[in-house]
């Protein structure tokens, strides 16, 4: 095989490998991803066993610590309706408080919702203008 053909062959092989790997990556990302939902959407769509990323506001008066678990309710950011009570274990970020916006991965078990371990993120409150690239309270 002359050098030019060899080079073209190498290029084709390299490009094909890249395309295959990229496709595998892209495909798995869609199946591994958790949809982001608000409480009202979650109530409508939740399928038991699947993980969802719930975003909303912590309902005032709903926060109780029971042993290792933290129970609280999350309501729609906009309307304040459709509060979903859930039980969460794991790291609780510093800014967590009633009335703050949170992001937590939940799944439905039977009729109750369980928060995935260490998945609670609390958004920095808008009152504070926060720094350029900083606080990570993800776990």
């Amino acid at each position, binding site marked *: 095989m002359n*050098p030019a053909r060899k*080079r073209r062959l*190498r290029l084709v092989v*390299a490009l094909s490998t*890249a395309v295959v*790997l*990229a496709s595998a*990556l*892209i495909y*798995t*990302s*869609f199946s*591994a*991803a*958790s*949809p*982001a939902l608000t409480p009202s959407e979650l109530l409508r769509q939740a399928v038991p066993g699947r993980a969802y*990323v719930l*975003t909303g506001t912590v309902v005032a008066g709903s926060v109780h*610590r029971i*042993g*290792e678990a933290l129970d609280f309710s999350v309501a729609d950011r906009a309307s304040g309706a459709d509060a979903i009570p859930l039980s969460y*274990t*794991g*790291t*609780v*970020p*510093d*800014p967590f408080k009633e009335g703050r916006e949170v*992001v937590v*991965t939940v799944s439905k078990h039977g009729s109750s919702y369980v928060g995935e371990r*260490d*998945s609670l*993120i*609390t*958004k*920095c*409150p*808008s*009152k*504070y*203008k*926060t*720094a*350029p*690239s*900083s*606080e*990570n*309270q*993800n*776990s």
Partner: protein
Amino acid sequence: MAGLGYGCLLLALLVCAYGIWASIHGVRSGRPEYSESGRRCVYALACLLTVAMAVLEVAFLRSDFAFNTVADTSSRTTPELYRAAAVWSSQEGSLLLWAWLLSMWSSLALFLTRRRMRDVASYATAILLGFGGFFVGLMVFYANPFETTHPAPAEGVGLDPLLRFPTMIIHPPMLYSGYTLCIIPLAFGMGALLARRVDAEWIRSIRRFAFAAWLFLGAGILLGALWSYSELGWGGYWGWDAVENASLMPWLTGTAFLHSLMIQEKRGMLKVWNVSLVLATGTLAIMGTFLVRSGILDSIHAFGGQTLGVPFVILIALLIGSSIYLVVSRRDMLRSEHRLDSLISRESAFIANNLVLVGLCFVIFWGTYFPLISLAVTGHEASVGPPWFDRYTVPLALVLVLLSGIGPVIAWRRATLANLRRNFLVPLAVALLTLLALLASGIPGKATAIAMFCCAGFVFGSIGQEFFRGTRARRAMAGESVPVALLALIRRNRRRYGGYIVHLGIAVLFIGVAASSSFEHANQLSLSVGQSAKVGSYDIRYVRPTATITPKYDEAHTGSTLSLGAVLDVTKGGRHVATLYPSEGFYASQDAEQGSVGSLIGGQPVSHVAMSQSLTRNVWTAIAPDIETPALKRVVTTGNRTLPAEDALVAIAYLARAYLRDPPAAQFNLLVSPLVLWIWLGGLVVFIGGLVAVWPPASTVRRRLSSRSLARAGRRLARA
């Protein structure tokens, strides 16, 4: 004075507009005085923005709450050092910082190249002024740092307590320096393509800036990780958050660029790769800035209004479009001078290096922007979490570390079998020995961690071999002793050996990352006074609670009102290891609804982590004390009701005493992670190696040669 600041911004906008026109006119009509004028516009921009920064800084230091940004991010109770740093904690202030840093670095770059590459530099000037004008324009029209309110409020909101740490003072300027330094090679790269002058001259000039960008970005990223680990309450240093990823992506392509540049210098290959990488790095730097400032991704950082999103998207689209156009239309100039001779060669290893780094960048890009991608594709927003990132980045990282050991020792053009045997025997032996030692030591069989340790061993073997052979060669030539030879070797070949030191640092860093992620022991639980918890082979006992009223005893100088914590006794096998004092600081808020007492402690609480660090392991502890027990809440409400506002602190003192007298159980987060210190040490070694590599050699001091010595040199060189 706000008027002065705003006036500077307006002037700056005009200067940018004129400068762009002048530079382009100068280069197109061959009138250097216009190009010169354009260059001076960059200097003028730097002056104007310095004045603007000074006005804002002074406003913060004087706590002039007429300025909206000062009122929003600072307060009289914020310590002075943090007041100064609060300038860039707001949207507007950070835009000013970005523009200022860009103007300063651009001035330096243009000053250093003022006598060379006239036409390339002219185009670069126009591009840099374009970026400057964009950011100044954002400030003038969308996010003005000099907006004022009259009458001025009496007190400001205060700097977010999470930011009141020394690391957070230098992290943004360092990171922004990294971002803005990425724009300079982009500008010169585009300038070179526009002027059709993609030659060795261009490479020599921008390599320094690409390297500086790489160094600052890397330092910024590492500082961010260090801050996350030591100051935040979750005990991790990397969470694949959008903002972390945003700064990592240009660093990866920048690394690829610095390596791939060597191949272009030595063999005239990979020219298309190099221009593409330099353009990609600059574009990713802009995208990173956009990600952080526009709130477009629903990460925990939702700053900036949606108003900033549109201009940024237009800029990025423009960058991508023009980059592709330039590279495609100039591809005849970017043809390789040589071809790849063999897949087993240094050139090939560097190409593989490019591919792995770009591949890593692509994975991180995809995962970071996935919410937007899925929204566009499926109509629903979805996100991927750290497990997805880990799945793809870990194998790529393994290959990367392996390549960093292969690259320095593999032969050019074509590596023969004899050659391979000679160069790879020692590194492979070290890797194998590492594997055997690890298996024999009986550590748990975490495959990826062990693989990483072996790859790191491979790197140590190959770099060690390089130093050994180099020293031996030098000694054969100059007959020096070993230490002298080693130093002379490094001094005379700074780029090479500085680079080798960087590789060593990376290997050490990855050892730390692998060990601390795979062999960590964690325990999150609630403890009452006297109780103990077991974490790994350590026992941690909650001895007694602590309560401190600050600001009187504010050791951390962060301006908190009250600090509640614990004394923890750490023992291992009965032997005392350390005493740790984690605590949580409670800060004042502006919320009048909480009452005079409640608002003193109603603000953002911040965890103060306590850890025992050593080369082998870190014992990391954090506490979340329960301040909302019925008894303590009663103290607050009674204080709100009965005490006058100026005596509110008395209630806090009472609260502290009540907490000490009858401490409720507190939540503890306890971690024992091995080799965490190796991560920071590795980073330090990388930084030192980088400095060695970029340090200008002493011999660039001007030397004039006599005709006799020239003749002698000529004779020697010519003997062929």
